């Protein structure tokens, strides 16, 4: 979801990478399939108190890849990462990838 750069929260830190130094947006625990960001001058950021909330700052170009479907190009700009969710009375649960 694109957003204005000025609206990025202040105090964001670099979100941690995985063991292969990849920027992983979401990981299927059972399949190991991952949504991974690659590209030039791309940062994956998160607030220090909520590492689950991710933002992307793309100054060059970005690519979002996943094992199950083709890559998606992301142009320069700031993005908020949102995961699809599903309604369940009494609870709201993320969609199983």
């Amino acid at each position: 979801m694109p957003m204005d750069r000025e609206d990025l929260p202040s105090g964001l830190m670099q979100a941690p990478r995985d063991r292969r130094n990849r920027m992983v947006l979401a990981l299927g625990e059972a399949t190991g399939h991952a949504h991974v960001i690659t590209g030039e001058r791309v940062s994956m950021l998160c607030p220090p108190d909520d590492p689950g909330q991710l933002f992307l700052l793309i100054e060059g170009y970005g690519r979002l890849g996943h094992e199950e479907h083709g890559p998606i190009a992301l142009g320069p700009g700031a993005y908020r990462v949102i995961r699809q969710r599903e309604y369940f009375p009494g609870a709201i649960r993320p969609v199983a990838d």
Partner: protein
Amino acid sequence: MTTETVQTPDTTLAARADEWLDTGLTCVPADRAAAEAGVRRAYADAGLTPPEQILWFGSPAAAAVAIAMLRTGETGGAEQSGVRDLLFAQSAFPGQTVLGGSVRPKVRTGPWARARAELVAQLGGVGFARHWAASSRRPWQQLVEQIVTPLRTRLDAQFAADSGPLGAASREAMLDPIFGQHDAAWLGAFDEGTAELAGLAAVARSAGWWWAFEHLAIITERPREVHRDNLGRLHHGDGAALSYPDGFGLHAWRGMPIPAEVADELGSLTVERIRAEDNAEIRRVMLEHFGFDRYLRDSGAARTQSDECGVLWRVELPGDEPLVMVEVINSTAEPDGTFRTYFLRVPPTIRTARAGVAWTFDLTEAEYSPLQQT
């Protein structure tokens, strides 16, 4: 203050997280000698005399009952005969064997708190947050939130249903387990060289939950099987999602613990059976297992609206809020070039497919203008 030089690289921390997560999920039988050595080391590092006896049980459920027997002197009935026999076989006798007080604060809580305080002092607040996120966030979510918490909830409910002294004492025992392999959730945050945590780490690598008392330690086997869904939640439609070698099992559907009788019924559900179920939570599990789309089709759901985002369906459920679902076509092609149709449940207040899809992304209808989806 934070300095970049002391921050461990992400790849190292992520590798540590993965390795500990594997430890936390492993189902191989306990390495009893290594676990017992770890227990003794943890006591020694806490400045305590090693336990006089170390007892083994097949599951946390059995261990809690055993502790309750030793605490109360009660020997239980036919249902508890397995635990009672195991106690006797290990020369521990209700009414005679003395547990002493719990030494969990000294063995686990204290060392962990000190190690954490040291790391915070070394890395600073934000540095520690980043370190924790890289090393422990996933293992914590996968092990504590998805396995330990449902297991504790289930055991508490099971013991609460027993109104006798053993039920109450078993519930009390559930207040101070040490999580053994599930402590892998946080051990990855600390360097292998953190001497004070070595005993805890050794048990975590070798066995399941354990309990530390002044005179006695009680250790349990690891699960024999763990089944999880794609988000890591306990989930199995064909048997227990989490099962232990002594036969204790926890049935769960997408993270929600369910009674074994309900689990058995899931394979043969009908629209009528689901409609007749008066427990709303169970009915939701049944609906999900049956398939929302199949239920919509078989129960004569009303197609209430459609737009460029999809189709909105609605079924009234007696005594419950209506089932409202948006049917959407994934806008990204599958590898074979086809487009997958899927259904997402949305709140019953949703009036249009577009508003429904927007809701699934936590956006308003006006905000939702997708460029691409994954």
